């Protein structure tokens, strides 16, 4: 399994993929966090969907990770794309047969790839946290936001829990990406379907019936990243524990079905 993980890391560290993904994470993290402070007095709002996050909220101990938790959902979408592409490409390039000749245990292939991609995702999340928190620290004085509570014990706890929540959410999105990659066996199809579903279809469904927001997979994972608060784009009113359980069920059932198919299916391409 670790051999598979090391082999996968060799693929993940290729410059275009590694720097491209990390660059996207840095860009979105800096953007989300900066807008919180730069547009703090804007009547159009300074957060997603025109929401206003005021000085009082940003001055709380959780203010330091306000930007980081907002960008968590986007990190999830990036993870979904990377996990889906890395999984489905084995079918489109025909390289799966090479992998299986060198490592016949299909479960080890799957777990090894998953471990390697989690390391990749963790690097992305850590970088995002550093950029986001740094941007907040730099921009807070200019926006007249007090940082007195940011680094007391509550502030440090908020950083830790947000990091964990974003990590759970990103890995959840990543597993969905792997599941789509295994089911659709094409990076373009898997990414297109995943991104369209998360960014458009779920929002349309919620617009049709708002109570559905408590039962859609992407919305639950956004809510997990945001700690179950009303921070995510469409996650208002979703309890953290509810989002964790429902999102976990979606991810778990999808992973079991996709793994079963991967273990049983003939490799004919």
């Amino acid at each position, binding site marked *: 399994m670790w051999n598979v993980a090391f082999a996968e890391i060799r693929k993940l560290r290729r410059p275009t993929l590694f720097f491209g993904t990390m660059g996207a994470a840095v860009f979105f993290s800096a953007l989300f966090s900066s807008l919180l402070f730069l547009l703090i007095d804007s009547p159009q709002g300074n957060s997603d969907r025109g929401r206003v996050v005021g000085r009082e909220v940003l001055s709380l101990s959780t203010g330091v990770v306000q930007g980081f938790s907002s960008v968590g959902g986007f990190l999830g979408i990036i993870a979904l794309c990377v996990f889906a592409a890395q999984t489905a490409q084995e079918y489109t390039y025909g390289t799966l047969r090479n992998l299986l000749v*060198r490592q016949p245990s299909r479960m080890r292939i799957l777990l090894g790839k998953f471990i390697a991609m989690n390391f990749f995702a963790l690097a992305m999340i850590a970088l995002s946290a550093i950029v986001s928190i740094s941007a907040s620290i730099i921009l807070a004085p200019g926006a007249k936001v007090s940082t007195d509570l940011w680094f007391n014990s509550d502030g440090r706890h908020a950083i830790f829990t947000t990091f964990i929540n974003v990590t759970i959410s990103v890995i959840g999105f990543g597993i969905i990406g792997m599941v789509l990659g295994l089911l659709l066996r094409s990076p373009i199809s898997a990414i297109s379907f995943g991104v369209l579903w998360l960014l458009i279809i779920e929002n349309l469904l919620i617009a049709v019936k708002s109570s559905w927001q408590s039962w859609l997979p992407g919305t639950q994972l956004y809510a997990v990243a945001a700690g179950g608060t009303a921070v995510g784009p469409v996650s208002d009113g979703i309890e953290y524990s509810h989002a964790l359980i429902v999102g976990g069920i979606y991810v778990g059932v999808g992973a079991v079905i996709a793994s079963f198919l991967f273990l049983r299916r003939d490799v004919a391409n």
Partner: protein
Amino acid sequence: MSNTAISVTDLSKKYGEQVAVSHATFEVPLGTICGFVGPNGSGKTTTMRMLLGLITPTGGTGEILGESIKHPEKYLPRVGAMIEGPAFYPALSGKENLNVLASLGGFSTDRVQGLLEQVGLGDRGKSKFKTYSLGMKQRLGIAAALLPDPKLLMLDEPTNGLDPEGIQEVRALLRSLANNGTSVFVSSHLLSELELISDYLVMLRKGEVVFTGKMTDLMLAQQPIIIAKTLNESDLVVLQGIAEKAGHHASIRDGALHVQGPANWAIELNRAAFDAGITLSQLTPQLPNLEETFFEMTGDK
């Protein structure tokens, strides 16, 4: 310990109602080069996939290096394979592609440069796979198959895309591996190619094994043939009639009459042609090559 590299009995694969491989039974002795012959779509690749654990047989049993094909993890560390062409990550270099496979199999990456040099890619190892020509991709596939220092090498159409020089190099490489004790199971639809290198042969047609055994046994069992060409091509039919009337099987292929019969019957044919007023432009007794033998055995063409 078993003295066969590959042994299969009644191996079958069906996709719905379509039979890809039907009750294949054959053995490949250790340390030989075994040609796996058959036209496109005859089931060669499907058989190889079953032997490598990539697809599940619908019937039959098999052993590779003494281990059941139900447990590929027991023999695959000693098997090198290239199935259905070389498949690698286009954005990685040739060397990095081999490093990925070396890491995966738990082999030392120190071997990689040596293997690249062995297949003639020593100076192109750092180029991205997507920049390789078809022949270079094929060479990289062979290098990947050699990574585990295999006891059994399974190659599917390894000379596809190679120039004549490359084909000769692959031929020499396979011979040298076999001389060092590696068993080689190599498929091709180019029968003339396998005729030059194989010690042993498994012949497949429409999913069924039509011959398995030593190449020399196959060729010796074949009757010699007499190839005759006439000045006027329309006379070939008349000549065919003469040969068949004399009790010999005769067929017209590629503008020539192929007659099964002893070499000295060529004298009789020449005389009969002269009596019938037919001018012969060529009359050559020869042993049939593998391609002719294949067509003869399968009744094709």
